[in-house]
């Protein structure tokens, strides 16, 4: 077999040259069409829950530059922008359910005029006391969606009979996506009542459908396009729809192109975030400290509507085992309604919360029993015999133990553990902590239907290639990876392939670019399209040279048969002359997955992605200040499609996850108002927060066991969970103050949380 020419190469991101020149066009950079108007959302200044008593928009209407003011009554079709349940009104009608819920919008000549006018509205709410926290919602028994659990028959008995028992509680914070490009859409009215929408969205098909339903027209009359997003991270999966719908409504009503770009504060207040959870658990262990049974309740703050919470909380359950075998289990969830913005997708999609519970439990057991947490973790990993997950899928690839063993050596874990113990014995205030934690992350949408993708490939008469597929580009390098796949199939340079914007009129009925599935699904679909064209081209070449098409090879821009060869371009011209179609759609659906939610059994994941990280921290136990001093990562991406892009995903995912478990804290006040709605109050990591000693390596894989595109593995989400080792290292450091006692540390481990944990130990 020939080596690969393009797949597996560390080529630059397809837009890299544009990015460094400021020439990459994001939606707000598109040259505005003459007459373009701007729309800004408006909401009640006060109140998070209650009947809308009155809306007075006269002052907004009269403000300078204002063209129109829109409310629910102006919507010709369906007033809904929800992804699943039909419970997210575009404009609140009659009542509001969280602070900042959009009630109206102002269309004006400039964005500034629209935003200023939106503040002039006078809205009266019959205020009711909101449920803000998980505790509030539990107290009012506010289940938004039915509770759901994986329960084994023997869990109660196994807990009772276990040698050691340990109980704990953990608060797990939410997280703001903080994509650097905020939500934005630009709608342009078309002939016959149609609409063209540029949307910064991970899910163009859903935007298309939402806009069509809102206008009361056919899906086919709406086109949604997305060339690139300035970051998304799940926050533009369902959350882009409302702004696209408002822009489209304004365009429909005024007949002008209309742009809706949220201000950062509005973006943070008005769009969903990662779910916060509270975990309450009990675990039973045998005398060798192997887990016998786990009983955990994970209670989620879902916000005011269902959004994607059902699937997200399911994924929390799917990952509450992380990489560990639980012989008996009850993994229960409550999906709670609160009067806060509806929480939504964010890289990991509920998985991180399940996993941080599992690792907090491990760390706590180790502290309580005075053993090394790594030994405890290794002892409880899935093995060939102990291989069944709480949802019935068998683990058939046992990589994580190998990855951990390698990392243990390369990070000098044992030596540093001893060094830290010595350091901590001498240092009364500054304490070092070290932890090495695994990640096992299931790849596939757990809603089996969504595991499908399409592509559209054209070869032109000059041998150049047009590539389009249903996946969206948010910086993750998907377009580049898929282009490398297509270049490989045709045996031509990647520079011969023109990547084009994702559009609903080129590839229809797509799934969101989410669940790390982008290159798995779209890479396969594009490959299938390219293979179809290649087969036709091979037939023409075979006829020309008198050989069977299977003997025709495509390599290095040449198409060869026996001793003859011609350029790919010449063959393309010949195909056109021979009246052979050089255009094809490609389609792919993931095989071998199934899931029966009613029984809680199945094979929901095509495969798992694995990794591990070892983090060291230095904690000032007097002030709560914390610094991550070194991080080692080993991560499995199968045969990488592009190692530069994959390592970028690992580093970026790690730092984002590190923010989640350390500095990023969402604060809602008792009135349900988000008080951390700007980067001035909400702290994402910056360059000086990231460890200087940051060692990232790809696991030397023999390739994915599952038959994926060139045996690669998905890499978008899994690395986000690697920094759970940072949180565990903080626990490890604090626990050194009083060995044997588990500090009450919540996530994120902010300085305040660290101080509370130190205090919980009751040491002077």
């Amino acid at each position: 077999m020939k080596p690969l020419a393009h797949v597996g190469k560390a080529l630059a991101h397809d837009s890299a040259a544009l990015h460094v020149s400021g020439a990459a066009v994001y939606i707000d950079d598109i040259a505005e069409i003459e007459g373009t108007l701007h729309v800004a959302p408006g909401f009640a200044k006060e109140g998070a829950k209650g009947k809308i008593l009155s809306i007075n928009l006269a002052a907004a209407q009269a403000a300078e530059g204002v063209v129109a003011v829109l409310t629910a009554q102006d919507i010709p079709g369906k007033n809904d922008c929800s992804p699943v349940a039909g419970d997210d009104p575009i404009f609140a009608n009659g009542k509001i359910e969280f602070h900042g819920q959009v009630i109206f919008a102002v269309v004006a000549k400039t964005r500034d005029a629209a935003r200023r006018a939106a503040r002039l509205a006078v809205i009266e709410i019959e205020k009711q006391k909101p449920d803000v926290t998980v505790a509030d919602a539990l107290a009012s028994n506010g289940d938004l969606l039915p509770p759901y659990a994986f329960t084994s028959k023997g869990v109660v008995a196994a807990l009772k009979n276990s040698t050691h028992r340990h109980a704990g509680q953990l608060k797990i914070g939410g997280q703001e996506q903080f994509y650097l490009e905020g939500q934005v859409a630009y709608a342009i009215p078309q002939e016959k009542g149609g609409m063209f929408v540029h949307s910064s969205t991970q899910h163009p098909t859903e935007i298309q459908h939402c806009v069509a339903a809102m206008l009361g027209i056919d899906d086919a009359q709406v086109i949604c396009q997305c060339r690139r997003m300035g970051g998304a991270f799940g926050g533009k999966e369902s959350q882009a729809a409302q702004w696209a719908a408002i822009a489209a409504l304004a365009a429909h009503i005024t007949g002008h192109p209309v742009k809706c770009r949220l201000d950062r504060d509005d973006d943070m207040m008005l769009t969903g975030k990662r779910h916060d959870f509270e975990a309450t658990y009990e675990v039973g262990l045998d005398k060798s400290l192997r887990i016998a049974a786990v009983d955990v309740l994970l209670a989620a703050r879902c916000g005011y509507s269902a959004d994607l919470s059902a699937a997200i909380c399911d994924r929390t359950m799917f990952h509450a085992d992380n990489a560990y075998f639980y012989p008996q289990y009850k993994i229960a969830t409550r999906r709670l309604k609160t009067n806060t913005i509806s929480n939504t997708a964010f890289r990991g999609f509920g998985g991180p919360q399940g996993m941080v519970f599992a690792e907090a439990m491990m760390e706590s057991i180790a502290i309580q029993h005075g053993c090394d947490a790594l030994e405890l973790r290794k002892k409880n990993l899935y093995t060939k015999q102990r291989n069944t997950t709480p949802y019935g899928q068998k683990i058939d690839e046992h990589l994580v133990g190998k990855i951990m063993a390698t990392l243990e050596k390369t990070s000098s874990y044992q030596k540093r553990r001893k060094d830290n113990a010595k350091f901590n014995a001498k240092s009364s205030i500054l304490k070092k902590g070290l932890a090495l934690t695994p990640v096992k992350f299931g790849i596939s949408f757990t809603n089996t239907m969504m595991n499908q993708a399409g592509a559209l490939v054209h070869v032109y008469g000059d041998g150049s290639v047009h590539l389009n597929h249903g996946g969206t580009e948010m910086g993750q390098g998907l377009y580049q990876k898929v282009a490398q796949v297509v270049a490989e199939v045709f045996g031509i340079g990647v520079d011969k392939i023109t990547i084009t914007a994702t559009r609903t009129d080129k590839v229809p009925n797509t799934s969101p670019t989410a669940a790390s599935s982008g290159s798995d699904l779209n890479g396969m679909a594009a490959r299938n399209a390219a293979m179809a064209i290649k087969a036709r081209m091979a037939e023409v070449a075979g006829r020309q040279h008198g050989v069977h098409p299977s003997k025709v090879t495509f390599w290095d821009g040449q198409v060869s048969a026996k001793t003859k060869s011609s350029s790919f371009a010449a063959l393309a011209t010949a195909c056109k002359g021979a009246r052979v179609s050089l255009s094809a759609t490609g389609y792919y659906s993931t095989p071998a997955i199934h899931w029966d939610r009613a029984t809680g059994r199945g094979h929901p994941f095509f495969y798992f992605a694995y990794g591990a990280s070892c983090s060291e921290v230095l904690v000032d136990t007097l002030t709560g200040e914390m610094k991550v001093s070194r991080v080692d990562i080993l991560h499995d991406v199968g045969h990488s499609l592009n190692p530069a892009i994959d390592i970028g995903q690992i580093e970026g995912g790690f730092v984002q996850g590190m923010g989640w478990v350390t500095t990023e804290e969402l604060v809602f006040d008792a009135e349900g108002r988000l008080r951390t709605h700007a980067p001035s109050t909400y702290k994402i990591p910056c360059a000086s927060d990231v460890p200087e000693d940051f060692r990232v390596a790809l696991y030397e894989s023999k390739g994915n066991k599952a038959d994926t595109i060139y045996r690669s593995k998905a890499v978008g989400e899994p690395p986000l969970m690697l920094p759970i080792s940072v949180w565990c290292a903080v626990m490890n450091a604090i626990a050194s103050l009083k060995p044997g006692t588990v500090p009450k540390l919540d996530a994120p481990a902010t300085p305040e949380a660290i101080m509370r944990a130190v205090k919980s130990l009751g040491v002077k």
Partner: protein
Amino acid sequence: MGVHVRSTVNGDAVEFTCPEDEVLLDVLRNRLGLTGAKEGCGTGDCGACSVILDGRLVCSCLVLGAEMDGKVVETIEGMADGAKLHPLQQHFIDGAALQCGVCTPGFLMAADALLRKNPDPTEEEIRFGLAGNLCRCTGYDKIVRAVQAAAKEMRG
């Protein structure tokens, strides 16, 4: 109403009238068609709008358009020398120091300003020099490495 402004942007003379409260970022993006600087926050906290004003790195979202009168503005669009990329630009590409790219122009401006003041910064100086620029995608490591590599090349 408005202020009359004359300035030099990336070496070209520009002249326009804008409202006195219009910020430099909007002037660049909406009046001059220079959309390389981005609005990430509008409050001086993210650095996506960074440009160089009379040799000083500024958040263009916090500077008024009127303030550029008589001054020299440098933006990402003027960083390359014709078709030849600045070493920082080249190393950002070669070192894969970008993903979604929205932060990239701001980082390049900030790094350029840093290296003009301090051609041989330590890693810590680079990290703190870039701490006013947020990137949500890359995790910063490759950005820091790219700046180190460019600084080295520029020192010759």
